C-alpha cells in the first residue's frame, strides 16, 4: 500500500479546497440559510408540526443531506475530472499506485470537504431552530458514510464525464430531484399510499430517513434498512471504480 501517495493526493486536493475556502463555504451556508427562511419560517409557520416535531427542526437533516450530497459529488467529480481536463492525469497513470490509492486520495479529500460543510450547516441551523440530536454517534456515522459513498459516486462521474456539461448533468438531473423527492422537506407518510410505494425505490429516502432518525428518533423506514442501503451503494461504487481502473475505461486509450 502506497500510503504516501494517498497522503500526497489528499494534501494536494485539500490545499485546493483551502485556497478557495471562502467560496466553498459561503455559498452552501447562504443557500441553507435561505431554505430556513423560506421553508422554516414562511411555510413552517403554516405547517407547524410534523410527527410532533417543529417543521424547522424536521427539515434540518434533509437540508444537511441535500448540501452534503451535492458537495460530495461535485468535489469528487471535479477533483478527478480536472486532471483529465488539464492533462495532469498522466502522472496518476504512470505512478506506482493502484486504483485503491488514487481513489482513496481523491474520495477522502472530497468527503472531508463535504463533511466540513455539513458540520458548518449544522452549526448554522442552531441559529434558526431548537435542535437536540437524539443519537449523535449515529448522526456522525451516517454523515461520514454518506460523504464517502457519494464522493465515490462523484469520482465515477468525474471519470465518466467527457465535458463540463456531462459533469454537471448527473448531479443536476438525477441527484437533486431524488433528494427533493426523498423526503428532505416532508415525511413520506404524508404522501398518498401509491406514492409512498414509489418512494421506496428512491435510494435517497433511506439516507434521509436514517439521518433524520439520528436527529429526531423518527424514521420513514427502519434504520437497519437505511444502513444496509447506504453500505450497498458504497460497495457498488467501489466495485465500479475497481473495474474502471482495471480496464482503463475513459482513462487509458
Amino acid at each position, binding site marked *: 500500500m*502506497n*500510503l*504516501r*501517495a494517498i*497522503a*500526497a*493526493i489528499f*494534501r*494536494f486536493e485539500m*490545499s*485546493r479546497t483551502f*485556497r478557495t475556502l471562502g467560496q466553498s463555504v459561503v455559498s452552501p451556508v447562504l443557500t441553507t440559510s435561505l431554505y430556513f427562511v423560506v421553508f422554516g419560517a414562511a411555510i413552517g409557520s403554516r405547517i407547524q408540526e410534523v410527527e410532533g416535531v417543529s417543521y424547522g427542526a424536521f427539515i434540518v437533516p434533509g437540508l444537511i443531506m441535500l448540501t452534503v450530497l451535492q458537495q460530495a459529488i461535485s468535489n469528487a467529480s471535479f477533483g478527478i475530472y*480536472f*486532471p483529465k481536463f*488539464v*492533462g*495532469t*492525469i*498522466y*502522472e*496518476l*497513470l*504512470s*505512478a*506506482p*499506485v*493502484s486504483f485503491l490509492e488514487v481513489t482513496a486520495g481523491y474520495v477522502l479529500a472530497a468527503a472531508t470537504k463535504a463533511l466540513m460543510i455539513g458540520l458548518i450547516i449544522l452549526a448554522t441551523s442552531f441559529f434558526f431552530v431548537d435542535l437536540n440530536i437524539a443519537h449523535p454517534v449515529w448522526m456522525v456515522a451516517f454523515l461520514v458514510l454518506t460523504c464517502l459513498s457519494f464522493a465515490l459516486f462523484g469520482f465515477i462521474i468525474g471519470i465518466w464525464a467527457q465535458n463540463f456539461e456531462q459533469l454537471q448533468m448527473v448531479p443536476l438531473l438525477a441527484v437533486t430531484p431524488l433528494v427533493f423527492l426523498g423526503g428532505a422537506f416532508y415525511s413520506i407518510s404524508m404522501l398518498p399510499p401509491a406514492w409512498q410505494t414509489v418512494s421506496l425505490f428512491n435510494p435517497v429516502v433511506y439516507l434521509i430517513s436514517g439521518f433524520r432518525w439520528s436527529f429526531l428518533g423518527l424514521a420513514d423506514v427502519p434504520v437497519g434498512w437505511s444502513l444496509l442501503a447506504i453500505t450497498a451503494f458504497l460497495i457498488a461504487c467501489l466495485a465500479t471504480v475497481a473495474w474502471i481502473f482495471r480496464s*482503463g475505461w475513459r482513462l*487509458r*486509450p
Partner: protein
Amino acid sequence: MARTILEIRDLEKVYDGGFTALHAVSLDIREGEIFALLGPNGAGKTTLIGTICGLVQPSGGRVTVAGHDTATEYRAARSLIGLVPQEVNLEPFEKVINTVRFSRGLFGKPRNEALIEHVLRQLSLWDKRDSQIRALSGGMKRRVLIAKALAHEPRILFLDEPTAGVDVELRRDMWEVVRGLKEDGVTIILTTHYIEEAEAMADRVGVITRGRLLLVEDKDALMSRLGRKELVIELREPLKAVPDELAGHGLEVLGDGRLLFTYDTQAERTGITRLLAAVQASGLHLRDVETRTSSLEEIFVGLVTEENGADQSGEAAP
C-alpha cells in the same frame, strides 16, 4: 557491455477504431545510456512511451523494466520510471514547489526538501518556486515537468520532445542537465525531431516511422556514415564510363554523366588532392565541382520516405 534495463518485446498498439500505431516493436535499452528516438510526426514515439509508462493500454507484447513486467509488477516497474510528457500538462493555479512535492509523494518517496531544492536549482526554477504555474513562461513550464519527474529519483527518464518550443540557449542548458543525469547513472530515452539534438546527446539512435522501428544504431557508427562527403565532378563532356586515367580512385559515374567521389572527412587523407591532380594530368577539362554531405538527416529522411512510399501522409522531420 552494460546490462539491459528496459526490454521491449513485440510491443503492439491498436487504437480503438483500428489504427495500428505500433507494429511489434522490440528494443533493448542499456543501463546508463542516452537513447534518442527519432521520427516524423505521428510515427508512434509518444505511443511507444505511453505503453511503457502506463498511459496507453498495450494491445500485445511485453515490457520489462529491470526485470519487472510493466503489466504484472507495475509498482516495481513504474517506481523506476520518470516521465516528461510532450504536452505541457500542469495545473495552472498550483505553486511550482507544491506540484514538485506532489510528484515525489505520489511515487511513495519520503519527504526530502533538500532534494527538491537541488532539483529546482538544477533547472533554474528555485527563484520561481512560489510562483503559480500559469505565471511561468513556456520554457519554464517544460522545466517544471522535468523537475516533477526528477523529484522521485527515477532510474530511467523518458523525455518526450523536451526541447520543443525551447530557445537555443535553454536547449543547451537542458542538454547539460541531461548529461549530468547520465553521469548520475540515469538511463535516458528522449524523442526529438532535431537530428542535431540526437547527434549532440545520444549514445544510440533509433528511427521510428509508421509504428515500425527502422534502425537502431550506435551514434558513432551512424556518425561515421554521416562523416562521409561526396564530391561530384562535372567535365566538359559527359562520361559513359570512368576514364582509364582516373581508374583506381573509386569513382562512380552518375546517370547524368558526372563523376561521383565519396570520401571520409574524418580520415587522415581524403584523396581529393590526388584525384584532382590526376584529373589535371589526364587533360580532362573540369566544368564544375560540387561537394555534398550525407547527413544523418539525409539518412533519416531517406529511410522515412523509402518506408512511407508515395502515400506519405505525415510530414518529415525538419
